[in-house]
């Protein structure tokens, strides 16, 4: 019953959409009339909708009943039937314990609808448009991963695509530019076999196993042991990973020619000539290099990858060297690889290429790389400089990223035995980049008639000669895209149209990516504008007329048909311009011009300064006040900001967010009123200013608080916590810096935590605790606190017992004492009554008494205490 109703509703909705002539008011993402949408960016047969509460509740009940084709809404049923809906499911499935919160957020109202993929998405979306209760609908766009493949460590492989973001030292573009090749040409084919003459490749590695030839009569071979048993070696495995680690398998790294679909690309043949030496780890066991190279030629390989070289003691010796016997093996490979015994082409390329690492001695020579028929590969660091170790010279044919350990994350990241991955550096790592690019070229262009000379021509002449200094002497930088596009004769298709709008003296262009017969799609667009329409006719794009303004718009990762936008700047204000766009490919073949569009540039708007300033800013001496200003040019012009502080208290800082922060530090200026000022001028002379008036208030020094009670303790290890703000405070409310001390030491232990003073008694006696509070201006206030640690049952205190002037007598608390003092001759010299308290002892002036020994008797209540003192 419900299904039937839904079907009827969907059909009715389709009918209604067919009659409408206006765009609905609903917030549905659909193109306007006359606007075109590139549906290649959409996933066919899918859309996302948001339902009203009522419709969501109905649909939920229908789904719970087992079917969505008959809902309680006739219009829904009709539309779903009309678009051939095959499923409706919640975009956010039931979340269990989180479901209540999901519902509160309205996530339960979002559904994904799957329908007939043959139906244009825009049409399907429009059909949904008018159903009551559907609040929003949109087609499902394709989502492209920020990484081209899903290999998790691809982001570390700057040597493939260097965005200049891995570290501050990495420079954008210092890579082999392989991403456009993956997008537009190929990711490698399995009929291209690369012979890796090196340490054994880990044939069981998760990122290599599927592309490696197993050991055997027509596969990999161990030339160290003379067997087919390949023993994994870190160097050889690393090299192989750069060439052919499997792409898009969700594991480890990507390889330059590692395929597209997780199944692998080019094939790796391991010709093992190095093997770990258990008796001498510093010196590998080696095999027959000559035979290993020839083995590749005889068993299908067309690329011989060699990251090794001859060892010389000194550069002078190497300069006298040569390829030696290796020459015969190299010549053989170049001549016979890819052919049968009769010289007929059997592989994707007739003849082979032998690619050698230039060497890591930092010398001007390296063998066998310097043998002319070989492609010698030098190494660059991540910033377009020659790697510190790389050999160099005009014999080096091409450069590639070999990395440098002097840069964080600056080495080459690839496979290591036992399913591991890691960084290594050297021309050994640069060399497989060239082998990998060569493998891509063969994969795309290979086939009957494709020869090794054609490969070398494309590989070397397509390399980028503009980015490395000639002083590096390691040739041009390997450019996979350049090599692929090298020799392209066909320009991209002419853009059919472009749109242009003006703001200030900028023109914003948009156009769609056009196709290219031999390069898949255009590499970029020239955005052109001139006051004279005639100047846009018959253009020589390599030498544009002086009255034609231009900008380039690289297509980048945009797909064919996608809309790309770019801006042309530096024009005059309020001026009429004629505009057009031209597509070009990587080989600088230019298309025709799009139809000319006329536009008038705008006025120059002065820069804008915004802040929350609301009048005079008052800052106390200890305070820091921040005022952030947003300074920008509405036209997007660059601005020059001049800050006049007014006093030393004001400083200006440009924040990473782009805001300008004026900081007022009260401590850095005398009290008074000042003005800080921003003067902002854009690159075309329009300016704005703002004045911030501020006042540094008078500083008030800290003061002792009142007359606090002294402290009396009756024993040791007793504690008391004091808030020092209760003793020394600042009239300005400043957080003071407190310093504490006691004298004499050893009676109390003081521990300061922020404003809290923790006091612990250590021994009996009277101590003075000094609390000093200092404000930001260095003004101080000192408060002294007497601390008495005394056993209430102890004898009266008579001190000092070696008297200079006054004799102090107390008994801990407020008391009346009977004091008598007699001389050594027993003459009674003092006999009287005194009063004292804990911190005010009775004082007897003995300054006029003769030096000598005196007996002192103190009667305190029931206690009588007798002692001897001396006057000195």
């Amino acid at each position, binding site marked *: 019953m419900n299904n039937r109703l839904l079907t009827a509703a969907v059909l009715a909705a389709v009918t209604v959409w067919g009659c409408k002539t206006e765009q609905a008011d609903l917030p549905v993402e659909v193109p306007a009339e006359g606007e075109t949408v590139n549906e290649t960016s959409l996933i066919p047969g899918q859309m996302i909708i948001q339902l009203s509460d009522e419709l969501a509740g109905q649909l939920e009940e229908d789904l719970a009943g087992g079917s969505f084709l008959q809902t309680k809404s006739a219009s829904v049923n009709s539309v779903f039937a009309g678009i051939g809906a095959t499923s409706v499911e919640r975009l956010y499935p039931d979340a269990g314990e989180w479901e209540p919160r999901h519902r509160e957020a309205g996530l339960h109202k979002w559904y994904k609808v799957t329908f007939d993929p043959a139906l244009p998405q825009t049409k399907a979306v429009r059909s949904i448009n008018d159903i009551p209760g559907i609040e929003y609908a949109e087609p499902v766009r394709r989502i492209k991963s920020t990484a081209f493949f899903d290999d998790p460590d691809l982001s570390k492989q700057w040597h493939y695509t260097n965005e200049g973001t891995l570290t501050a030292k990495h420079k954008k573009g210092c890579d082999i530019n392989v991403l456009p090749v993956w997008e537009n040409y190929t990711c490698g084919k399995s009929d291209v076999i690369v012979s890796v003459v090196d340490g054994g490749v880990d044939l069981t590695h998760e990122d290599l196993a599927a592309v490696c030839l197993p050991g055997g009569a027509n596969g990999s071979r161990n030339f160290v042991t003379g067997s087919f048993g390949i023993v994994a070696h870190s160097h050889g495995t690393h090299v192989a990973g750069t060439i052919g680690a499997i792409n898009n398998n969700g594991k480890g790294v990507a390889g330059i020619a590692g395929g597209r679909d997780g199944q692998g690309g080019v094939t790796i043949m391991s010709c093992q000539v190095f093997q770990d030496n258990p008796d001498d780890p510093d010196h590998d066991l080696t095999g027959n290099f000559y035979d290993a190279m020839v083995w590749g030629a005889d068993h299908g390989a067309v690329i011989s990858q060699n990251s090794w070289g001859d060892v010389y003691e000194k550069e002078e010796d190497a300069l006298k060297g040569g390829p030696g016997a290796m020459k015969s093996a190299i010549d053989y490979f170049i001549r016979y690889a890819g052919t049968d015994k009769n010289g007929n082409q059997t592989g994707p390329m007739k003849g082979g290429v032998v690619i050698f690492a230039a060497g890591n001695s930092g010398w001007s020579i390296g063998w066998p790389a310097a043998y002319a028929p070989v492609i010698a590969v030098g190494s660059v660091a991540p910033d377009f400089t020659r790697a510190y170790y790389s050999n160099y010279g005009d014999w080096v044919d091409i450069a590639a990223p070999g990395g440098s350990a002097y840069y964080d994350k600056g080495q080459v990241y690839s496979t290591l035995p036992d399913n591991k991955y890691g960084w290594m550096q050297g021309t050994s790592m640069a060399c497989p980049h060239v082998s990998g690019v060569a493998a891509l070229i063969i994969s795309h262009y290979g086939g009957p008639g494709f020869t090794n000379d054609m490969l070398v021509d494309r590989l070397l002449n397509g390399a980028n000669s503009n980015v490395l200094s000639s002083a590096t002497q390691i040739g041009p930088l390997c450019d996979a895209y350049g090599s692929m596009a090298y020799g392209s004769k066909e320009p991209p298709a002419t853009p059919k149209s472009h749109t242009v709008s003006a703001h200030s003296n900028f023109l914003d262009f948009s156009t769609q990516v056009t196709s290219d017969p031999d390069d898949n799609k255009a590499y970029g667009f020239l955005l052109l504008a001139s006051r004279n329409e005639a100047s846009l006719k018959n253009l020589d794009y390599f030498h544009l007329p002086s009255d034609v303004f231009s900008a380039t718009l690289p297509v980048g990762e945009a797909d064919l048909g996608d809309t790309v936008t770019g801006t042309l700047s530096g024009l005059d204000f309020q001026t009429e311009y004629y505009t057009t766009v031209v597509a070009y490919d990587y080989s600088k073949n230019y298309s025709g011009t799009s139809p000319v569009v006329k536009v008038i540039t705008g006025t120059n708007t002065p820069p804008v300064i915004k802040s929350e300033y609301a009048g005079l800013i008052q800052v106390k001496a200890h305070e820091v006040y921040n005022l952030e200003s947003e300074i920008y040019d509405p036209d997007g012009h660059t601005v020059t900001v001049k800050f006049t502080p007014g006093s030393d208290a004001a400083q200006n800082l440009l924040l990473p967010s782009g805001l300008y922060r004026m900081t007022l530090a009260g401590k850095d200026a005398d009290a008074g009123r000042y003005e800080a000022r921003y003067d902002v001028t854009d690159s075309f002379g329009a300016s704005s200013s703002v004045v911030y008036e501020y006042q540094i208030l008078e500083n008030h020094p800290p003061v002792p608080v009142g007359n606090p009670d002294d402290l009396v303790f009756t024993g040791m290890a007793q504690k008391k916590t004091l808030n020092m703000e209760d003793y020394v405070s600042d009239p300005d409310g400043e957080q003071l810096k407190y310093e504490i001390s006691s004298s*004499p030491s050893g*009676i109390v232990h003081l521990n300061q935590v922020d404003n809290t003073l923790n006091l612990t008694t250590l021994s009996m*006696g*009277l*101590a*003075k605790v000094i609390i000093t509070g200092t404000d930001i201006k260095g003004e101080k206030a000192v408060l002294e606190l007497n601390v008495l640690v005394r056993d209430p049952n102890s004898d009266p*205190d*008579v*001190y*000092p*017992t*070696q008297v*200079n*002037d006054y004799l*102090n007598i107390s008994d801990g608390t407020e008391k009346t004492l009977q004091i*008598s003092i*007699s*001389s*050594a*001759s*027993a*003459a*009674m*010299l*003092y006999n009287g009554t005194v009063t004292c308290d804990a911190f005010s002892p009775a004082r007897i002036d*003995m*300054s*006029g*008494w*003769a*030096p*000598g*020994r*005196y*007996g002192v*008797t103190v009667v305190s209540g029931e206690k009588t205490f*007798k*002692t*001897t*003192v*001396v*006057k*000195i």
Partner: protein
Amino acid sequence: MRKTLAIVILFLAAAGLHAQDAASVAMPFSIVPRNVRTLSTGGLTTADAVAVRLLGDTGLDVNASWYSWAPQGASSNNINADAFVRLSNRLALSAQFGMDIAPRYDIYDAQGTKGGFYSPKDMLVKLGAAYRITPVISVGADLRYMNSSLTSKVSYSAFGADVIAAATFGGAKVAAGVTNLGTSVKASDGTAFGIPAAATLAGKYNVSFAEKHSVDAGAQVDFFFKGGLRAGLGVEYGFNGLVFARVGYSLGLNSPFPTYLSLGLGAKFSGISINAAYLVGSSAIGNTLAIGAGYSF
């Protein structure tokens, strides 16, 4: 003559009563009698001076004693010795030694913090000689050295001299002179304090009756130059020359020597004597006990 003497006594008495503070007198221990017999008869030190004794008939007199001095005041254990030797009918010598050892005191500084202890000591050494000018007149002089050790680093010393003239008339003897003329000591603040110099006047009378009974009575007045007066009066009763009972009184008026009542007992046999004294007075000197022994002929 009597009138003149009375005027002098009154003058000196007035000067003594117009006294300076007795506390300003240094080395007061130097006026403590060092002989038990003298102590127990009111401390008539001038009456027992070497010049007076030269006018008597004793040939040799040596004594040693121990005092528990002023146990309730500036207490000390005093060890004393003295000797008198008649070299001829005209010349006699005397010597005296005293060492007062006080209990140790705890050292507290001006903040009341304890810092150790110390036992102070006072010492007196006195040497004297007398010459008989005529059968009834003699003069004598003593030189004394005083030292007071108060702390481990502070001790004071001073020198003094006594000059006494004596005369005898029948059973009576009179003496006058000055005592403790000498140096002063300087306190830590530089203030100088003099030793207890004084003018002294003493008289003594001996009478025997009923063959076995004897009485010695004496009196003394000291006028301290810095102020203060002390007067002493003492009587000794002897039975058969074997046992003795003594009583005395010392009056100190703003004096470095205290007021007290002294009681004493003694015994003598074959020249060997044993003496004891007990003082009653203020809390500063009360309960002082002295015991001594001597030999004389």
